[in-house]
Each structure stands twice: as structure tokens, then as C-alpha cells.
């Protein structure tokens, strides 16, 4: 499964993550920082007007584009090809990989530089190109760190958030780094190491933040300058885009870029907003001579025309991740998908199926902070609930104990006599487990709960008896108080 991170079952990953105190602290602190910056740049920026209206504008644009996706993709590809670029539509990750591999082979490429791209992570592009004998270099600072340390991303916007500077220094030593753990010095080393790689690479590969359908243009939203390097010096350029990542015209691009920059990192605009349109035959020296666009489905069409279509409105800002209380405690790797957090829990089952990712929608308290944070108003918590329903209804695989418990409850709750007997029996049955008025160590389904806290012991008096008693008392008081007969 290409988008998979690690091989652990979800709950094992969670157990490991919550005990990693550095990671938990780093993630909490990153969340607080990014969330604060987002709030200042959105609700806090009064000059923008009503932030809710901006969200509505984003929602409207994304919904229209997705509802007419085939048309806008046709328009995009027509314009891209009319300017001399080559477009390949890939239904699967494998088709996308094979096409890119073929292009690299034709160019006899030995050195490939990449700018950060979630979709190329998703299709596991690097491994395939490396098998072909290409040196593939990630050039975004975080991705470069992860590549050197053979690690995987844990956040969409800040992929190396789980690593500290000492770990990074140790990783860089593999490349001959002898400096300190000062972030400036570490970044300076990456600058020096990668500069000649940029200038001498054969192929440059990037993702795509947004494409503009009416001119066949690709927009990249970055801060470090590496994407500009990658799109300027290699003779061959390949852009890989998820098929939903486009807007009709430049006017809509304005809105989605504004939403993305402010919601992801709290900047009015990122340092570089770069719009590239093919022109391979031009005389420009610092421009690719051959430009390819690979448009990837890889499971996205599973969401079209379903309750989950709005998940494809996502602009990958990670605002939902930065407010999620579950992500805060387990970090990104525990999700087992390159797309973590609320959007990951919605998107991963769509792209990779319930068999692999069916448990992720349970990684939520359903507090709806994610839906509120989303700049294009994706109702994330509702989609998580819908996933849970579908997981249980259809091909889902809830554990045997859970199924048995639900079956038992269904029988008990459908017969008043059994239900009554059950509520009377519960305090007696659980008595051996009760210690000082609570259950500190529960068996079976209670186990995960009591692992972290005590479960209150069931009261000897059940609700029905309590209600009956209070109803009688209340009637007596009212009768006495008003002097009226009932």
C-alpha cells in the first residue's frame, strides 16, 4: 500500500506514540504555534473582513470545481498541451509511477531533484526511480532531513515536526556535517549541500498546490526557494497533481491561495507563490525544455458522487490537524498513513479502503474543531461519523468482542424484561471488580478505558427505579403544595 507509514496495527501505533514524550511535546507546541498564527492571520486580521465569508467563498469555488471536474481537467490538459506540455492521466499509482519512470529513462536521467509533494509520497515514487538507478533528492528542508534519516512524514505542512535538532545533527553527520545543532547552521548545511544538485539535476519533480484550468498553469506555494530551483534548472520538468487540485481561473486562484497561506502557516502569502505555464521551445536559459503533467486519480474518484465528495475540496493546509486533540496526543505516524489527523482519517479510507484504514475514523473525539478550522468548510466530523457507519454496515471488520457486545445489547435492549433484569444484574456481576467505589481494572471492552482511568462502579439503583421513586415523590409534593387533586 503506497501511502502506508509503518506496519503496526493502528492501536499499537497509538500505544507507542503516547509514550514518546518528546514527540508529544513537539507536536503540542507546533500545534499551538501554527494555530495561533492561523488565528492572527484569519479571524484576527480585521482588514480581511468577515473570515466566514472567505470560508464560504472557498467552499463555493471548490464545490463548483469538483461538481464539474471532468470539464476543468479537460480544459487544463488542453491548455497545457497547447503550450507544448505533455499530459498523462494516471488512474492508479502504478500508472503514474510507470509514466514518470519511462520519462526518466528516455532522458537517461541519473539525478532527480524533488520539491515537497504529498502525492509523490502517496504513489511511492522515490523507490521506483531509485530502483532504476536514479539519485532522487528531496530538497524541502524537512523532507531532506527525513530522507537522510530514513524516516517518514508526520505532518502535511511540517513533515519533520517529530524530530529534534540533536537528532537532525546526528542525521546530517552521515553527510559529513561537523557543525552544531543550531537550526541556522543546519539549514546552511542543507543550502550548501543541495545548491550544486539543483544546478546539475537532469529532472525536476514537484507536486501541485493548484492548477489553473483556463491557462494550463501550475501554482506552487512554498517558502524555502527549493521549488523555484527544482522548476528552473533541470531540462525536464514533471509536475504530479492529485486530480482534484485545480481551480477554473486565476481569480479563483487568488481566493484559494489566500486561504491556504493564512490557514497553514499564518502568512499573508508564503515567500514564493510561483505560477508556471509550459513554454518548452522558448529561448529561456533557466527554464525546462520538456514539461510533463501527471494527473493522478489513485482512489480519489471513489469519493465522487458520494457523501464523501467534499473531502476532495481539501487544499492541504493542515488547519484541521493543528486543532485536533487526538493528533496532539498521538502525532502523525500512529495513523499509519501519510495523511494524518482529521483529513487523513477521512481521506485515507477513501484512497486506501476500509481494510487498511477503517479504524482511522475512530481516531477522533468528534469535537468538530476540525470542521470549524477548515478554510473550505469540509464537514470533517460528519464524514468521520459516516465512515464509521459504513465501516460497521458494509465491509467493516469490528473486533469479535465488539460485535458480540453489540449483538448482546441489541437482544437486551429489544426486550423490556431482559433489559430490566440486565440493569439489576450489572452491579452484582461487576461487584468482584469494584474497589473503593470504582473499577480500576476492567476486562474485555472495558480494558482500554480502565488502562487510563477508573470506571465508576454501576449504581445499585438503576435509572428506572430512581425515576419511578422520584416521580412519586414529586407528585406527592405537588399535591401537597397546590391542594389540587391529581
Amino acid at each position, binding site marked *: 500500500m503506497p501511502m502506508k507509514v509503518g506496519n503496526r496495527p493502528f492501536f499499537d501505533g497509538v500505544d507507542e506514540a503516547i509514550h514518546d514524550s518528546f514527540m508529544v511535546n*513537539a507536536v503540542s*507546541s507546533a500545534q499551538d*504555534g501554527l494555530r495561533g498564527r492561523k488565528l492572527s492571520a484569519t479571524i484576527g486580521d480585521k482588514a480581511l*473582513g468577515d473570515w466566514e*465569508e472567505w470560508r464560504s*467563498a472557498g467552499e*463555493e469555488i471548490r464545490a*463548483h470545481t469538483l*461538481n*464539474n471536474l*471532468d*470539464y476543468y*481537467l*479537460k480544459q487544463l490538459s488542453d491548455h*497545457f*498541451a497547447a*503550450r*507544448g506540455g*505533455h*499530459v*498523462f492521466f494516471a*488512474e492508479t499509482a502504478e500508472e503514474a509511477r510507470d509514466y514518470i519512470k519511462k520519462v526518466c529513462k528516455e532522458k537517461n536521467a541519473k539525478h532527480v531533484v524533488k520539491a515537497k509533494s504529498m502525492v509523490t509520497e502517496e504513489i511511492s515514487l522515490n523507490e521506483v526511480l531509485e530502483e532504476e538507478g536514479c539519485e532522487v533528492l528531496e*530538497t524541502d*528542508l524537512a523532507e531532506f532531513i527525513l530522507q537522510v534519516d530514513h524516516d517518514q512524514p508526520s505532518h502535511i505542512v511540517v513533515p*519533520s515536526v517529530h524530530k*529534534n535538532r540533536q537528532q537532525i545533527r546526528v542525521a546530517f553527520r552521515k553527510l559529513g556535517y561537523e557543525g552544531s545543532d543550531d*537550526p*541556522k547552521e543546519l*539549514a546552511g548545511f*542543507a543550502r550548501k549541500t*543541495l*545548491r550544486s544538485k539543483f*544546478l546539475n539535476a537532469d529532472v525536476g519533480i514537484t507536486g501541485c498546490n493548484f492548477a489553473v484550468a483556463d*491557462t494550463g*498553469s501550475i501554482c506552487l506555494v512554498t*517558502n*524555502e*526557494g*527549493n521549488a*523555484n530551483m527544482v522548476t*528552473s534548472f533541470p531540462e525536464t520538468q514533471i509536475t504530479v497533481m492529485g*486530480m482534484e487540485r485545480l481551480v477554473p481561473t*486565476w*481569480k479563483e486562484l*487568488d481566493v484559494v491561495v*489566500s486561504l491556504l497561506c493564512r490557514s497553514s502557516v499564518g*502568512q*499573508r*502569502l508564503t*515567500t514564493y507563490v*510561483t*505560477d*508556471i*505555464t*509550459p513554454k518548452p521551445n*522558448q529561448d529561456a*536559459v*533557466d527554464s525546462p525544455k520538456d514539461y510533463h503533467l501527471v494527473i493522478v486519480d489513485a482512489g480519489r*474518484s471513489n469519493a*465522487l458522487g458520494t457523501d464523501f465528495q467534499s473531502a476532495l475540496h481539501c487544499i492541504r493546509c493542515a488547519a484541521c490537524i493543528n486543532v485536533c486533540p487526538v493528533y496532539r496526543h498521538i502525532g502523525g505516524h500512529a495513523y499509519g498513513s501519510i495523511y494524518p489527523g482529521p483529513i487523513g482519517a477521512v481521506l485515507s479510507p477513501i484512497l486506501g479502503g476500509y481494510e487498511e484504514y477503517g479504524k482511522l475514523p475512530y481516531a477522533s473525539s468528534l469535537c468538530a474543531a476540525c470542521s470549524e478550522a477548515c478554510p473550505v468548510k469540509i464537514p470533517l466530523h460528519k464524514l468521520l461519523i459516516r465512515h464509521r457507519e459504513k465501516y460497521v454496515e458494509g465491509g467493516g471488520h469490528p473486533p469479535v468482542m465488539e460485535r458480540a457486545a453489540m449483538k448482546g445489547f441489541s437482544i437486551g435492549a429489544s426486550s423490556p424484561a431482559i433489559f430490566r433484569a440486565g440493569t439489576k444484574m450489572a452491579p452484582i456481576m461487576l461487584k468482584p471488580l469494584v474497589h473503593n467505589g470504582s473499577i480500576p481494572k476492567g476486562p474485555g471492552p472495558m480494558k482500554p478505558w480502565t488502562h487510563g482511568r477508573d470506571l465508576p462502579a454501576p449504581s445499585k439503583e438503576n435509572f428506572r427505579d430512581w425515576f419511578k421513586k422520584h416521580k412519586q415523590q414529586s407528585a406527592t409534593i405537588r399535591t401537597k403544595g397546590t391542594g389540587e387533586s391529581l
Partner: protein
Amino acid sequence: MNGTIENRDSFLEKIAGKLNRTPGEAPELPIWAHKPQERVYNDYSEEQLTVMMKKACEPIHTSVYETTLDGLAKQLVQLIDKYGAGKIVATKDERFEAFGLSNVLDSYQVYTWNYKEGRKNIDKAAEATIGLSICDVMLAESATAGLFNDKDKARSVSLLPETSVVIVPKSCIVPRMTQAMQLIENKVEHGEEVSSYINFISGPSNSADIEMRLVVGVHGPIKVAYIIVSDV
């Protein structure tokens, strides 16, 4: 020459089928109910925009200077000296001459981009300490220089040298991205070709990827300075 398109028909048919649409049928672009972007700073005067732009330079670690056309050469010289002179590269842009800067370029032996020289240009930009460009549109809200790069106004000039100096004609300051996009869209509507590389740059390259600590200067320039020229 047109490029190629592969695998499109079946791909789009599948999507159209799921959306219950006739494949490729053109929708009407809606009149958007929400257009908050059009109201942001839309009544600001040129002076107000300039003040806002200067203020926006602070958080993006960018120095900003303002001068008249007469004072531009002197200001540029001061800035070049401040950044240690050294090797300098400039875009090929007729506005350098129109702004009276030819003498400055000559006296500092500035290498002016010439695409006919091929790879030599990139080598010159890579070894230069200062790159000189003139911006096409300036977004006041974020102090963003919009550069419509081409074979002469080369992207390398504002990317490879450690310091990027951008001259900003005051008349090209607009409120925000909205007006720049409108400018591009107007060109499209009039059948003009969109520049192959439109670069919106807000200050020096930076990263907060290591423990969320901001590092200014990663792969692109480490320092950026703007010179606003008031009467051009």
C-alpha cells in the same frame, strides 16, 4: 508545437459518470455569491498602499527604501555598497536604462542577463552576491514583488544570489493578489499569452522546519531589499 495528452478519455468518462454529467460539457462559471477579496483595501490611495507595503516588509525581514527617479541611482549605489558590492547580475530590462541606471550598472561591471550566452548566465548568477530586478506588480498587503519572468527577465537573478534587490515603481503597487490576478485574467481574456513563470516573492527564503524555529535564508536569497521609486 502542441504537446501530447494520454489516457484522457476513459479517465474523464469515469469521472463524468460518477458526477452524472456528460463528459466534457462546459458548465457556466457561476457568479460567486461570496467575493470578500474584492473589498479588501479597495479604497486605499497610492500613498496609503505605499505605507502599508512598507509596514508589511517588517515581518518578512525585508529592507525597504523610497526615493524619487532623480535619487534612484544614488540610492542603488548606497545599497550595493552596503551589501559589499562584489559580483552583480541584473535582468535584461529596458527599464534600467529608462530609470537612468545604465551608468551604475557599468561602473559596477554588472553582468546583464543575455540568453544567447546560454549556461554562462546561470554560472554568473550563481557566483553573484547581488541580483538586480525590477518588479512588474507589487502587492501592498504582503509586500510581495510580482515578477513576470521570461528569457530576458530571468528568474535566476532573484533566486541564486545571496541578496536580491528589487526596484519597485510606485505605480505598480496594488492592494493585494486580487488585483494581480485580475491583471493576468484580463490578459487571458484579450488572448495574450500568460508569462511562463510568474513569481510572487515576499522577502528572503525561509524555513521553520527545525523545531519550528524560523531560519531566514534557505535555498533562495538570504537578504532582500526593495527600492520604491515614486515618480515613474
